[in-house]
């Protein structure tokens, strides 16, 4: 690296000492002298496009006009920032700009500051707009040099010059970082909310940056970078987050670590997935506007959600009425025959909150009202007093209709009200579906890892549905929460506490009891053929070189008996399931 020496620059008579290669602009700033700029920003390297920062540099007998933003201070130069020549140039530039963009604020302000009023010229490209693009190129620089997304660029030359997108089409690589809009001096570039027509916005995640805090309740509550969407990992650009972080806590080189921990007991509480109602075309989820599933509506109700907690439709208006449909995918022979347990109560909760926050009429379409817990039935009765309409009859379909015949468009729920024995069509502005709770999509893969089974509904199988709902058939592996079956929060907490207590009691004992069912080699009969060695999935059988026989390590053997069946000498016996015992069973069965 070249050694940087200090040089003295003479700017307008003032001496100022700066590092060699500092630009005149920066040196002047140090000396307290203002030089006007239009295309300069500290975000990127100066590139001298607007020429407004032109100054006169005298070296010896020669003087020349250079742009202060990128001309380096070399030893012994003398700069005049306000000479006649400089003033003439500035006047020319500003008049050219004013003639083309007479109404742009930054142009007018700069002209005023420099004492220039009316332009002498009339531009062929005169643009009356207040937010016209003044071709400063700052957006291009941000996009190409800082963020390195490469979306914006200049096209054409001369008076036809303009800032464009590639092929004038919407760019896929634009990450909507807003850097261009942020740096644009005229407000020509705007960030606009896209119309979601035809595309479903992801409510549960919402729009967020590539660096984000996962949830408000995240532990530890630190941001994480999604390397798939972060532009730094694609182009090595941006790094804004690292630059603004004061304690310098951001490290782009961190890698995922795989940590191996030895444990004795495992508790699986991997939760559930929400049934996707898209295949049920009759309810219009994913097709009609304002049809939400329960998690999406939770996001809407949440004060940190997309609407700040207000109950609003897609078009931003409050709904006139809301329909809540129970049992979407539950209690349904076509999807899941079981009851998802929690939906009746959260449907009532939604009704209560909608009633609280809006004047909407609220309808519940239910098969049964399952208010089984402490205080639940009382809550239901309270809701009846709030004027919620309960219609006993599963909704048949959601169609587009109109509001009370006055032509205002809305949705319509068709159902049978079994209590009055009539078909009804209820106009609603918003439909909330109570989707089934189903096992996680990857539950089969998780299951195989731990050698546990699943019950017919797909949730992990407990050892006994009444007497042992937290253990599994595999010793040391416990299950809790919705991984074992749909349940609400109090039940999950109770089950998880119970599983934790079971685990702690095993850990506290300090020793583990193992089943006596295991294999053993009868040494006299073993021929040392070693067929059994390779069969054992737990590598519990070792070959003893000195004795030339195989030997079972008791702590590792799980007692499956595969080696017993395979032993050609019948040297291997399986305690509890010996050949003699099984053959005796056979004989007993055939009587």
């Amino acid at each position, binding site marked *: 690296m070249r050694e940087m020496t200090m040089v003295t620059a003479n700017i307008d008579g003032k001496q100022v000492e700066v590092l060699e290669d500092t630009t005149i602009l920066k040196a002047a700033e140090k000396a307290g002298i203002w030089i006007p700029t239009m295309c300069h920003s500290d975000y990127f390297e100066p590139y001298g496009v607007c020429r407004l920062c032109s100054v006169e540099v005298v070296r010896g007998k020669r003087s020349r006009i250079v742009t202060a933003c990128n001309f380096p201070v070399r030893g012994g130069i003398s700069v005049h920032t306000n000479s006649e020549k400089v003033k003439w140039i500035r006047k020319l530039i500003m008049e050219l700009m004013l003639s083309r963009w007479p109404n742009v604020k930054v142009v007018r302000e700069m002209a005023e500051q420099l004492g220039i009023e009316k332009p002498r010229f009339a531009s062929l490209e005169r643009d009356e707009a207040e937010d016209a693009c003044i071709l400063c190129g700052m957006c291009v620089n941000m996009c190409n040099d800082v963020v390195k997304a490469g979306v914006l660029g200049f096209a054409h030359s001369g008076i036809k010059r303009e800032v464009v997108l590639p092929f004038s089409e919407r760019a896929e690589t634009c990450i909507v970082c807003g850097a261009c809009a942020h740096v644009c001096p005229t407000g020509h570039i705007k960030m606009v909310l896209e119309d979601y027509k035809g595309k479903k916005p992801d409510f549960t995640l919402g729009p967020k940056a590539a660096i984000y805090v996962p949830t408000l309740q995240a532990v530890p509550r630190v941001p994480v970078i999604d390397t798939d969407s972060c532009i730094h990992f694609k182009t090595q650009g941006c790094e804004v987050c690292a630059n603004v972080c004061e304690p310098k806590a951001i490290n782009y080189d961190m890698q995922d670590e795989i940590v191996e921990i030895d444990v004795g007991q495992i508790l699986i509480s991997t939760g559930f997935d929400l049934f996707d109602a898209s295949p049920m075309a009759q309810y219009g989820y994913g097709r009609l506007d304002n049809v939400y599933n329960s998690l999406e509506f939770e996001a809407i109700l949440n004060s940190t959600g997309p609407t700040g907690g207000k109950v609003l439709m897609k078009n931003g208006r409050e709904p006139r009425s809301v329909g809540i449909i129970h049992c979407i995918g539950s209690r349904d022979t076509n999807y899941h025959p079981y009851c998802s347990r929690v939906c009746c109560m959260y449907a009532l909760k939604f009704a209560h909150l909608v009633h609280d926050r809006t004047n909407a009429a609220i309808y519940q379409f239910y098969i049964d009202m399952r208010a089984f817990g402490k205080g639940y039935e009382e809550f239901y009765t309270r809701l009846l007093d709030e004027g919620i309409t309960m219609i006993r009859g599963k909704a048949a379909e959601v169609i587009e209709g109109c509001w009370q015949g006055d032509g205002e468009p809305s949705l319509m729920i068709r159902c049978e009200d079994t209590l009055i024995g009539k078909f009804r069509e209820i106009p609603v502005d918003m439909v909330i579906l109570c989707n089934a709770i189903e096992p996680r999509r990857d539950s089969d893969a998780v299951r195989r890892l731990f050698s546990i089974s*699943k*019950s017919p509904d797909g949730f992990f199988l407990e050892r006994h549905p009444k007497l042992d709902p937290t253990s599994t058939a595999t010793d040391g592996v416990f299950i809790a929460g919705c991984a074992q079956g749909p349940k609400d929060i109090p039940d999950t907490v109770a089950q998880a506490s119970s599983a934790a207590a079971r685990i702690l009691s095993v850990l506290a004992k300090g020793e583990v009891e193992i089943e006596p069912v295991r294999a053993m080699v009868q040494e006299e009969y073993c021929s040392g053929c070693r067929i059994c060695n390779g069969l054992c999935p*737990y590598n519990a059988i070792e070959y003893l070189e000195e004795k030339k026989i195989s030997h079972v390590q008791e702590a590792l053997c*799980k007692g499956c*008996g595969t080696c*017993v*069946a*395979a032993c050609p000498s019948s040297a291997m016996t399986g305690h509890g399931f010996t050949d003699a015992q099984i053959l005796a069973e*056979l004989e007993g069965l055939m009587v």
Partner: protein
Amino acid sequence: MAFEPKIIGFLCNWCSYTGADLAGVSRIKSAPNVRVIRTMCSGRVDPSFVLKAFQIGADGVVVMGCHLGDCHYQEGNYKTIRRIPFLKRLVKDFGIDPRRLRLEWVSASEGDRFAHLVNEFTEEIRSLGPLTLSVHTELRKKTPEAVAV
């Protein structure tokens, strides 16, 4: 009196036995002809057990285990799937119709599948008729009570 097949079932403890138990708990009706012997794993089933079962008078044998990939002991059922199909080809040489030996995978949640298999296999054996081997006649000569043929 209609012929009632005597079928021996070797069920692995973790999947098929639990599945059979589920069938019972769910009160699913199935034929009573399958007499169950529980082993820890279907890999424990020695081919000699199957042959012994036929020898002492079973009309059919079914070996049930966990689905491939789901074995409680990781790979036991892969050993079963090597042994039993080979045995099916072997019993033909003994004069036993290979349809009398079956290998089925039944998981712990498949109670109705277990019941369906039991019913189906019972009917198949019923249509095949009782198994008579010359060894049965020999055994009957020796100890008539020992062989319930």
